[in-house]
């Protein structure tokens, strides 16, 4: 589903954010990327839908090369949902307008159809009563659930999550993780940058550990936590697992 081959990314000549990263994510898999800050996790995620213009290597999503100039990048992005650390809801629009904007403008759906779908998604994330509200009237957990609904409204084949719970108060983390766990169980292909090791352990098919722009180690949940191969991984786990 996602083929990442030898990808390198420089922000400027001196700063190499990704260093020959390769990774394959199969359909229906949930892959968690973790690692210390500045290790290139978010950059890698953004390379997958072409938000970051990497200079070397190739990424293919469903066989389509992301950096190929012949690729219609907007069309490709429409197939890939993305959720951000700080929600990034559009503040001047209601929850309903946030969710229906892309389906109406990109997929050219009729308003009625888009709104019906949006309501169904709001039911699913548990806040149908917030449809007419503005983002600033919601709690962090509610905002993130709206953001997930907004991404799902495009009926994506892949979902990318960029630290979706890092900006949340502890009591709101679960409500977001529950939605994500549900998605994973339904067979959504997901790439999740997170420090939620509980989620990684129980939901992820594979965990990728990155440091300084490189993939240091990858493994299944159990192997990764119980038998980390590299010293760098052990240090990281020691620091974040209590």
């Amino acid at each position: 589903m996602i083929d990442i081959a030898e990808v390198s990314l420089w922000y400027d000549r001196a700063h190499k954010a990704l260093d020959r990263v390769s990774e394959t994510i199969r359909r229906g898999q949930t892959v968690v990327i973790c690692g210390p800050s500045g290790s290139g996790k978010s950059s890698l995620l953004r390379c997958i839908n072409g938000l970051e213009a990497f200079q070397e290597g190739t990424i293919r999503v469903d066989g389509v090369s992301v950096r190929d100039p012949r690729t219609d990048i907007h069309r490709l992005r429409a197939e890939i949902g993305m959720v951000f650390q700080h929600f990034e809801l559009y503040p001047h629009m209601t929850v309903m307008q946030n969710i229906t904007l892309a389906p109406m403008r990109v997929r050219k759906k009729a308003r009625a159809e888009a709104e019906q779908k949006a309501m169904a998604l709001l039911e699913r994330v548990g806040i149908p009563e917030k449809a007419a509200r503005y983002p600033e009237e919601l709690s962090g957990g509610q905002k993130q659930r709206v953001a997930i609904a907004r991404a799902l409204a495009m009926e994506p084949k892949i979902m990318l999550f960029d630290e979706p719970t890092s900006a949340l108060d502890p009591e709101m983390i679960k409500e977001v993780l529950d939605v994500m766990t549900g998605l994973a169980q339904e067979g959504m292909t997901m790439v999740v940058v997170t420090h939620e090791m509980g989620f990684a352990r129980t939901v992820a098919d594979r965990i990728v550990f990155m440091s300084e722009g490189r993939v240091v180690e990858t493994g299944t949940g159990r192997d990764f936590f119980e038998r980390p191969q590299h010293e760098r991984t052990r240090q990281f786990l020691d620091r974040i697992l209590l």
Partner: protein
Amino acid sequence: MEIFHYTFDWSVLWRSPYGGMLVKGIVTTLHLSLLAWVVALTLGMVVGVARVQPLRWVRFAGGAYVQVFRNTPFLVQLFFWYFAAPLLLPKQDQQWLYDNVPDYAYWAGVLALGAYTASRVAEQVRAGLLSIPPDQYRAAYASGMTGFQVYRYVIAPFALRIMLPPLTTEFLTCFKNSALAMTIGVMEVTHTAYYIDSFTWHGLETTSAASAVYLCIALCIIGLMALTEKRVRIVGMMGRGR
């Protein structure tokens, strides 16, 4: 009424032919500054957006414009457009200009004021665009929207609201700077006040009247913009604590 051996004669403000002149002056001030504002807003938006583009030469061009027009005195720019710019034209165009545009001073005023104010507007536009977090742009692009759609539906509606108060200030400055057009012979309200004084020796009354006109119009603009700000306020976000 007489103080300090000065006899007031307020009738210079309305008696013929001065009253008519004054009204004409006020009208000229109004459309001169409004036209200049239209130029400033259009050009300023383009330059401001250019200043945040990823392409280096586009950014450079925008930056060069701002530096040149913001860092030379407005009075000098006014003289440039009026006295110098026509000389740069080919001979026949120059002749055409002098033959067919009798009120060239007025148009030079519009152009000069517009071009100068545009450099200031561009800085406000740039600041507004930069105040929107990068992830907000990414969220919009990630949904598959084109660059135009991203700006049209997500960035502009939000950024314009942020820019409204500083743009009000710029508009007021533009309006007041229109007085300098008198130096190239435009008969706007300041020039008219001075002109009436040369016949009547009642400059105290006429300049007071001109000041009052500026003040009243400025206060009207402020009121109008406050109303607009209130109308477009985002629920839960702006205008807190009012």
